[in-house]
């Protein structure tokens, strides 16, 4: 019985031809992660000291196949279109690996000096990153969902990593419940999409939706559910309420990871869904995105103005920045290429500058043991290097040339202006006003660092470990480089026509 079944299956089943070069980054990384698990099991407690270094190497090793693929330059499609390796995917993968590397640098001392499980942390971190890397190439509902859960579940655990802290537990629980709720919504939407199109491939779904044969309300409902699910993930208003509590309660390196890598992964999925899957129904996507973007930047900024804790402030600033990243989606039909370029460019630059800000927060908290903005008082007097670096990151987040953030904002403005519609221009004006508001709360930190006196007159120097210094160097270097020579990103984002080509009528 079983034998005949197997024979039947094997006769109809054609093994896919695998392009191992295209999969090399994932394979290398997965092998490294497996090795980490082995090291942990064999060496047990002795392995703790090795883990940060090893996981750092594991994150850097896949950059080699990424480099060779980039030099090769050809777009590769695997598994019947479910997995695509193009220049944008490579850029995003490199961004995830490097962000992960910076997070490892951030975590090393923080974990070793606190009351944490160490080895398991790095295993969770690397597993989550594996999910993000797969997400960069996923063009299929199932692949997207698996990647999303692979990146989310370890992240839920990491948020509670400070076991004996009530806040950390609250952070993890909130993040978990909200995350599962969002996944459920998303899955419901995805099942409807599958029902409409009979396929899980985004290209098929896109083609089917564009035909317009299927009944409209169902399609609209499916699209809205999926987008709302991801709006939770990227913490867009009004689905943002978990973010500040989670960010404040989680250990700060984990917060940096959630705020940058995890959020970027959500945007990557949204990017593929919107531009490949939903391109035929921009009448639903665009107004929804317009509202999400305008609400996120405005509400995020206004609440950020009143924060006294720097991590909460960065959380709300992150919500506002999510609004900026969502803005190009609102004009995706009128300026497709510009919008895609804008989102990808913004994500990469945002990763560098926001991670950088967290590096400094962690470095300063080592001395002050506080997350209050007032604890940054007088930093310029006793730690000018950290002050200048933080100034670079905050000014970049505010969008001041010649730092990376200005170019990120600029490409979004450009996408909105290129659309040339009243909707585009009105969102550009909302964004311009918000950029000014945003500067005010970044300036509160600048003010504390440069103008105020140190609290209690404590001007003993901050001892910054080497790992944090290198993390600062990496992120500050990237922030400045992207600002002065934004063309560096152009090599990758210039080839976005690859994605556009599959758009109906594109």
């Amino acid at each position, binding site marked *: 019985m079983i034998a005949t079944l197997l024979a039947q299956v094997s006769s109809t089943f054609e093994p896919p031809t695998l392009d191992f070069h295209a999969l090399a980054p994932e394979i290398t990384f997965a092998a490294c992660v497996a090795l980490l698990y082995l090291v942990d099991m064999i060496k047990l407690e002795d392995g703790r000291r090795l883990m940060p270094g090893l996981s750092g190497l594991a994150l850097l090793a896949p950059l080699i196949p990424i480099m060779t693929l980039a030099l090769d330059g050809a777009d590769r499609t695997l598994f019947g279109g479910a997995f695509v390796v193009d220049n944008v995917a490579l850029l995003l993968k490199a961004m995830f690996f490097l962000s992960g590397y910076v997070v490892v640098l951030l975590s090393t001392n923080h974990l070793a000096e606190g009351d944490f499980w160490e080895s398991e942390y790095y295993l969770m971190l690397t597993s989550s990153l594996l999910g993000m890397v797969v997400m960069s190439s996923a063009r299929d509902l199932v692949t997207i969902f698996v990647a999303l859960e692979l990146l989310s579940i370890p992240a839920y655990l990491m948020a509670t990593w400070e076991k004996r802290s009530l806040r950390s537990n609250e952070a993890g629980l909130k993040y978990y419940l909200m995350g599962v709720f969002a996944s459920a919504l998303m899955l419901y939407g995805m099942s409807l999409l599958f029902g409409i199109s009979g396929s899980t491939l985004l290209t098929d779904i896109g083609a089917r939706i564009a035909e317009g044969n299927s009944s409209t309300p169902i399609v609209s409902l499916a699209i809205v559910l999926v987008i709302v699910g991801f709006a939770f993930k990227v913490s867009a208003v009004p689905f943002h309420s978990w973010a500040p509590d989670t960010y404040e309660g989680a250990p700060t390196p984990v917060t940096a990871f959630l705020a940058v890598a995890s959020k970027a992964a959500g945007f990557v999925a949204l990017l593929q869904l919107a531009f490949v899957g939903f391109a035929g129904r921009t009448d639903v996507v665009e107004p929804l995105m317009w509202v999400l973007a305008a609400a996120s930047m405005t509400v995020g900024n206004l609440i950020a103005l009143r924060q006294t804790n720097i991590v909460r402030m960065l959380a709300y600033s992150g919500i506002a920045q999510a609004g900026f990243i969502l803005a190009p989606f609102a004009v995706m039909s009128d300026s497709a290429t510009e919008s895609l*370029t804008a989102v990808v460019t913004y994500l990469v630059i945002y990763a560098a500058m926001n991670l950088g800000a967290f590096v400094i927060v962690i470095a300063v908290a080592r001395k002050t043991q506080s997350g209050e903005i007032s604890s940054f008082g007088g930093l*310029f007097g006793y730690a*000018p290097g950290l002050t*200048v670096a933080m*100034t670079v990151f905050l*000014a970049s987040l505010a969008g*001041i*040339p*010649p730092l990376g953030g*200005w*170019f990120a904002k*600029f*490409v979004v*403005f*450009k996408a909105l*202006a*290129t659309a*040339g519609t009243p909707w585009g*221009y009105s969102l*550009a*004006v909302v964004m*311009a*006003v918000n*950029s*000014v508001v945003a*500067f*005010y709360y970044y*300036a509160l930190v*600048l*003010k504390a660092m*440069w*103008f105020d006196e140190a609290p209690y007159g404590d001007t003993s120097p901050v001892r910054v470990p080497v790992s944090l210094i290198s993390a600062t160097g990496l992120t500050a270097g990237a922030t400045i480089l992207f600002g002065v*020579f*934004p*063309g560096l*990103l*152009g090599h990758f*984002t*210039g080839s976005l026509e690859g994605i556009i080509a599959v758009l109906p009528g594109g």
Partner: protein
Amino acid sequence: MTDFLNDWGLTIPTLLPLVAAVVMMLIPKAEEETHKVVALATSLVVAVFGVLLLLNFDFDRTKDLQFAVDIGWIDIIRSRFTIGVDGIALPLILLTMFVVPLVIIYSWNHFPEPHNPKAFLILIMILHTGMLGSFVAQDLILFFVFFEVVLLPMYFMIGVWGGEQRQYASIKFFLYTLFGSALMIVSFLALFVLTGAETFNMVQLAEQVAAREIALSTQVLIFGGMFMGFGIKVPMFPFHTWLPDAHTQAPTQGSVILAAVLLKLGTYGFVRIALPILPDAAIEWAPWIGLLAVIGIIYGALGCLAQTDMKRLIAFSSVAHMGYVMLGIATLTDFGINAAIFGMVAHGLITGMLFFIAGSIKERFHTLEIKRLGGLLKQAPRMGWILGLTTMASLGLPGLAGFWGEFPAILAAYNPAEGLNVTLFRAYMVIAALGTVLAAAYLLWLYQRTAFGEPKEEFAHEHVHDMHVTEWIAWIPMVIAFVVLGLMPGLLFGMMDGAVTNMVRTAFGG
């Protein structure tokens, strides 16, 4: 030599201060002398480049971009590193190169609290790059980047080294300017998209706008965005309120740079970008700009009369003076714009000088409250005389530079460009002329109260040091400059007239 200047003559002086800033970051804070020497040497090298540029500048074709460089920068948005200098930019570039070394010399032993020459000089170096870059940039995005580069250093300079209300003043300065530039960049992008020119080059955009016949209402809106960006920077009434605060709270060096160069970025933006690219919209806007300009003249002057603080008074006089510059621009004639550029340079030298003196007075008497001062001519006669000469220059006495900024601007309003309401501009002319009387009143009154009479009781028995060596070195070139320009205005008019006439003819056919 000429080849070298053609290739590198603008790039090196623009970027050298930035390199110096990086080098200074690596030198330990304790080595203050080294920092001072590096900063001064850099600014002097830049000034030498200025002299070389002046000597090699072809005065027969001032309307053309000279020493131009055009290389790729951000290809994906079609923005290029395009720099060059013509007769309009040259006076302002030279002004910047001239003022910065003097500011550093003045600072030598006068670093304001909390001292820290390293950080202070690094900020001046970054400012230097930003200011020069804005004047040489011929690409809108490049201009925007340099225009914004000056913001942060000035913010920190006011906020760290400023007076009592420094935090309020610095954030106000920043937010006002940022608001303007955010709308400005939207305007730039709208131009880029609407012309479809695929370029941010200023000259090409001007040609494209002329060729494409974009709807006038759209042009007027785009001009409005630029007006916010440049007008706040000038500053024009009613956006001027950041200026008195920023000037009063800034350290002396900050005030000097702010008055001498930063304000000119706004007026320069009008002459370089807004008018040539959007001439039709400029004609629509000109009456309103003229109106705000004359309100600024009268309001600034009345504001001066009401001030009790010397530095705040000088700041309000800046609002009035920039009003003349804007009136000159609003006439849209070559005569008015020539006067406006002359006014920019003259105001930079004279008001910069007034702030220098105010700083030195503050250092000696620890106050700038006018009613507590008096008898400067008795206690520090040399400084008193220099103050006298500078106030005369500021009120527009013929023979000194201030005259050539104000008088022709007023005269130009008699006969504005074609398409503008002559009666209206003649009314502006009369009001602006009344403004000069008020200017004489507040400046002479200021001089009377601070320099004449006997020193006040509280300072009568104090020994007041007259001029320091650094003050002599820093001030004498300024005084010589505004006296020479006053006696021989042709030096400057000859430099820019060709370029201005050409710009006006191309844009307005006048």
